[in-house]
């Protein structure tokens, strides 16, 4: 995957690796999650073992615990684990409804300063949707923008929500986007914005993208309004390659693109931060099918493949991905959400057999 990007971002990490033996295993923090999380995590572990991936799993639980100051937060052991390993794989988490719990996903993001969310969306051969030939990547600024959570009620009945855009964050994600494009053989980066209305905020984001574009003349750069992108995306998604945008537009567009290729059940996702990266499946916990061996581990598996490429184990990543797509294409072992009737374990075993 983005080998050169992560080279710069994870320099201290690589030095740590070099000091070890070349046959030494890397430790990866595994957050199984809730609902179907544990079963799909063990499916991924089984597949990795079959492929002979040199990875040790360190499982942690991120259920919020009451800290010494009375505030709920991620347990310190989980934080220490991810900080030590710098790489994590996360299953679906359930955010409990109620006061006092911040969204867990948001908390993880803030804790590890995961500033870019990368979601490659590619049409899956064998799982047909109405949209063919989708092959794009959405890169979304993950820390600020509309999701800053800064809201006030000014007078009763008038509420304001603040969208925060800063130059450093915009530059960071723009540079990441161009580096990703270069490292992955992509030819075009599109900045999605609404600078005709939000002139200062989206204007700043756009300027940062323009500055970085000038420093990368070999990648084509274009800027498009959000509404134009939405309109064109549902008519002809093949015209887009890499999309970079602030938080809210990214949220909406990345889910839109996931819908084009078949939904969250087959979409991988990676969050990149200054100190490491966490790869996750973005679907829900599906409590209704939890524990019944019916879940589809494809999303988590593809995210794990992204993780392997990040760790520069590209060959292994490619082998596992090919095996997964082959099984889906052949059609004999597909889980319920892909239109088949295989169990999760059957699907997993089929992939292991291919490896």
């Amino acid at each position: 995957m983005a080998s050169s990007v992560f080279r710069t971002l994870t320099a201290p990490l690589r030095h740590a690796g070099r000091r070890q033996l070349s046959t030494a295993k890397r430790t990866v923090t595994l957050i199984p999650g809730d609902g179907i999380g544990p079963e799909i995590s063990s499916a991924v572990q089984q597949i990795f073992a079959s492929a002979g991936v040199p990875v040790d799993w360190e499982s942690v639980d991120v259920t919020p615990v009451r800290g010494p100051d009375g505030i709920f937060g991620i347990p310190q052991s989980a934080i220490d684990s991810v900080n030590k390993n710098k790489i994590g794989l996360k299953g679906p988490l359930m955010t409990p409804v109620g006061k006092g719990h911040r969204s867990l996903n948001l908390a993880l993001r803030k804790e590890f300063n995961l500033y870019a969310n990368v979601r490659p969306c590619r049409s899956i051969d064998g799982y047909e949707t109405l949209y063919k030939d989708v092959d794009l990547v959405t890169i979304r600024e993950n820390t600020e923008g509309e999701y800053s959570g800064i809201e006030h009620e000014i007078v009763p009945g008038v509420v304001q929500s603040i969208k925060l855009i800063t130059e450093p964050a915009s530059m960071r994600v723009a540079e990441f986007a161009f580096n990703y494009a270069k490292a992955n053989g992509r030819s075009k980066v599109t900045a999605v914005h609404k600078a005709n209305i939000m002139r200062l905020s989206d204007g700043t984001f756009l300027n940062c993208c323009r500055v970085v574009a000038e420093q990368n003349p070999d990648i084509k750069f274009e800027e498009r309004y959000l509404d134009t992108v939405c309109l064109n995306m549902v008519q002809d998604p093949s015209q887009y390659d890499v999309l970079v945008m602030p938080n809210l537009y990214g949220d909406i567009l990345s889910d839109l693109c996931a819908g084009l290729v078949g939904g969250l059940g087959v979409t991988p996702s990676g969050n990149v931060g200054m100190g490491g990266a966490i790869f996750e499946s973005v679907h829900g916990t599906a409590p209704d099918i939890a524990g019944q061996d019916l879940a589809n581990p494809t999303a988590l598996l593809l995210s794990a493949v992204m993780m392997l490429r990040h760790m520069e184990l590209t060959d292994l990543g490619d082998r596992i991905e090919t095996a997964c797509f082959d099984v889906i294409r052949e059609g004999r072992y597909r889980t319920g959400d892909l239109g088949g009737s295989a169990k999760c374990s059957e699907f997993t075993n089929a992939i292991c057999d291919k490896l």
Partner: protein
Amino acid sequence: MAGVVGSTSLLLRTARAFCGPQAAAISKLGSTTQARNYGTDRSLARYGGRSTVTMLPGAGIGPEMMGHLKEVFRYAGVPVDFEEINVDTSGTDAASMSGAITSIRRNGVAIKGNIESRSNQPGTMSHNVELRNQLDLFAYVLHCRSHPTVPTRHPEIDIVIVRQNTEGEYAMMEHENVPGVIESLKVITLSNCERLARFTFDYALEQGRKKVTAIHKANIMKLSDGLFLETMKRVAKSYPSLEFSGMIVDNCCMQMVSRPEQFDVMVMPNLYGTVVSNVACGLAGGPGIMSGKNYGAKYAVFEPGTRNTGSAMVGKNIANPLAMLNAGCDMLGHLGLHQHEQLIRQAVERAICERITTPDAGGNQTTTNVVQFIIDDIKENTRAAR
């Protein structure tokens, strides 16, 4: 607060309570066969049986489309005079926009293309936003329908999108507190939410719709979208015959590209409105056919649905005139000129059914061919009527 004495008086009372006495007009929701009375009490300029309507051609393909609209209206014998106003788009003349707004206040109804605001300088307001804010056009209604002859992946779309049109993310209040740190304010007010809610449910009832879905992101923006959603839920209780539900905007977009048939009426704040309406138009076959209606308590402005300038198509004779013609028909309906409205709508429907459309809608005709076909159809029908 209001008893259900008769639907009109109930609407009148609720309108007065929220919008003040002037907006009592908004309550008189006629059926589709009567004149829609938003603002007719006070504002329509009608003299000698002819109405005057402000026309703002805007930029891009706007002037071309307006030309075609005027031609079609002439052949249909529509008793409407257009007061054409060209807004200065370079942004240096503040007075030209206010001239346009005064004209609309005088006439009560307008039809417009997309007005370009060429300077994206912070501090100057976008002309389109200014128009909507000054005239308090708080609701934007877009009816997205797929047609059997227009190529689309989803043949069963029939969605009405109601979008808050004046506040939310388009408040255009931004500031830079510290160099490099910019804050943009999104404002949501209770009064606008309530107005929009009542408008939406009344509109849904009038059009015979069954289900209203509120689109929001209240799990993240708990106060602002939370207020919007709470208001919707509260107002929904007064309309028990309509099914109401909420959906988060990203999930909504994902559902729309896989199963758009599940949506009936959708209501949402401003920014999600732009996303959802463009997605819906794209799904239903493109921006060339749909038209949108901006409603306020006193004024109404009609325009092509997706507010695109279409600058890539200027002068090439390939832009789709049907969006502007449909906007014209909406306007005629609003003015109560239903015979003319039906005449032109029938011609437009015939053009679509017989695939006499421009390339974006699946045909291979030029703009002028499409317009000529419609004019010929009108001539035939008016001759037959004589």
